[in-house]
């Protein structure tokens, strides 16, 4: 058992470089926990436990508090996410123009539930309250690209691009 653990450790050591850099950047800034978490997520794609533990030790704040903040905000994720993040707008304008059907189609085509990630880590499916592109409703965003005036039959073609 012990051998196993050590083996795992040497095979896949956690890379603390990025979190060290982030903490240095925000040194001495008041109330910087959220920007720190944002930067960690930017670097690792999600909030790895190791990085949060390290942050707690360095900033001398309890891990439970960091966990509390990380789970409060929709932006933060504690598990790895797909390479492409699909955000399906479920705002009012999209709702009355058929946003639910767009989400349903995506779920079917990716065989995912909301907040799920495909096994190949290619796509993560999320719903958001409003992207603010209501004029183009219904809308989805994939990474930073916005796709509007959607109908369910356009989805397959869009997914192809990624």
């Amino acid at each position, binding site marked *: 058992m012990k051998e196993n653990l050590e083996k795992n450790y040497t095979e896949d050591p956690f890379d603390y470089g990025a979190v060290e850099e982030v903490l240095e950047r925000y040194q001495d800034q*008041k*109330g*910087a*926990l*959220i*920007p720190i*978490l*944002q930067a960690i997520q930017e670097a690792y794609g999600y909030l790895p436990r190791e990085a949060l533990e390290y942050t707690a030790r360095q900033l001398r704040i309890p891990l439970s508090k960091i966990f*509390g*903040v990380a789970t*409060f*905000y*929709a*932006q*933060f994720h504690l598990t790895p996410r797909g390479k492409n993040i699909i955000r399906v707008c*479920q*705002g*009012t*304008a*999209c*709702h*009355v*123009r058929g946003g639910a*059907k767009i989400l349903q189609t995506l779920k079917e085509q990716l065989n995912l539930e909301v907040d799920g990630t495909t096994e190949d880590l290619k796509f993560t499916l999320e719903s*958001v*309250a*409003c*992207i*603010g*592109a*209501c*004029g*183009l*409703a219904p*809308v989805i965003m994939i990474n*930073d*690209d*916005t*796709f*509007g005036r959607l109908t369910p039959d356009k989805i397959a073609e869009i997914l192809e691009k990624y």
Partner: protein
Amino acid sequence: MERRRILLCAGTGCISSGSLGVKEALLKELEKRGIADQYEVVTSGCHGFCEQGPIVIVHPEDIFYCRVQAEDVPELVEEYLLNNRVVERLLYKDPVSGEHIKNHLEIGFYAKQLRRVLRNCGVIDPENINEYLARGGYEGLKNALQLSQLEVIEEVKKSGLRGRGGAGFPTGLKWEFTYKAQGDKKYVVCNADEGDPGAFMDRSVLEGDPHAVIEGMLIAAYAVGADEGYVYVRAEYPLAVKRLRLAIEAANRHGFLGKNILGTDFSFQLKIKEGAGAFVCGEETALLASIEGERGMPRPRPPFPANAGLWGKPTCLNNVETFANIPLIFRLGAEEYAKVGTERSKGTKIFALTGKINNTGLAEVPMGITMREIIFDIGGGIKGGKKFKAVQIGGPSGGCLPEEKLDLPVDYDSLTAAGAMMGSGGLVVMDEETCMVDLARFFLTFTQKESCGKCTPCREGTKRMLEILERITQGNGEDGDLEMLEDLAVTIKDTALCGLGQTAPNPVLSTLRYFRDEYEEHIYEKKCRAGVCTNLVSYYIVPEKCVGCTLCARNCPVNAISGERKSPHEIDPSVCIKCGVCYEKCKFNAIILK
């Protein structure tokens, strides 16, 4: 020779419709024809008419082209720029008269607007401070700095400006409280956590005219005696964050931000804080907790932020649109500013028109205009010639108004009296295909999910309300449900800790007030007249209309439709999953909802 100016909208709406590709094509085409030096191609902020994007306007003659794609560019250059022949097919086509309209001010969408706060949006390059300065930018600040702090506050009070973020608290009064509060350190905070689904005016202002917000904050800072400020902006608005960042850098370089601004003793530094996705952070005390790096949970007021805000210091907190109004007051003077509007609601308000309406987009109108004018004159009426049913105003905190309330003048007080509220100014228009019970359920799903969980009425009460609404929309509503809903709603309104909880029942209360019969139909007749609540509808093929084209049968995912070619088809209700695909595919309107 003066160069002609070609404005390309680069708001988020137009960018996602392809405006950056149009820009590239245009620059290339101008280069190719050797006329690039005669034109100035400017990417501007949002024109508000997102429905028609990408939008291209050619000055000085002000020709308005819409839905322009990259492949249209060679024709546009050849025909219009070189030969002065207007490309008719790219002009806006009036949905009623079918006429093509050349000049944007003649388009119904713009004709009734009064663009004061949005006057620079879509006109200047928001990434270039010189364009803001050329249109009177930072003049308001210069005027304000000639006055004493109290005189500035007096001027804002005289203007009658009320907070544009929701509740409509008088801005001048808020400033006065912060000014009078004891403290060696004060802050000014701009609330740009625009989370209301269906509202995007703050984002457009930040994207299209970021300096106006900075100037407004500077005047506020001078008045209340603050030397530091934050803009708390949603991380979901990457373009707004980028343009604001550029604007802050430029303002620092030009001496509008930093130490000894314009040679006075007044100093102010401004920072951006990106939100992390929590609707409740639009509530002022939750927002301040979030800036401090905490969970964004509200706390009881008093003390109000004016006395104990960010890190316990006196803090003046206003919304984006409110700050964007301030430079105007100090450029025009309070009296001139207050000439627009009604007795108790001064100035203009920006509304985000969305839903089942022809012209979606942002419209700035004088207070006191009627809802009917906004929806039918500016919004161009209901999409597809359907019948108007209701307009939802003010987001998840607001309410729904029916047809008979459309002639109400739009101002803070009359909207509140009618059971809605100004809120942030989101207007979602609904037609007969929207189910009001489902809509109430939709909003409550949202507020319930966003409830921070701190106080019991909101955490538990909205959950119970949502359970009842879900039951009703699934066809399991019972006698007594509506009374229970009302009882819960009133209790939550009275006892919740913050604005989110106190207003969460509004969509339910207002739909119960105006559309009670629809609730009763769901409960007692198990019927959804809009055909939205799938458990309560069944699809049926009208034999007389069906020509037997087999399109529906071929598209049905569960093979519930049978029938011979060229003879009427039938749906087997025991197999049908009510997905509605047949209804959408049928070209003969032979499928109906029962």
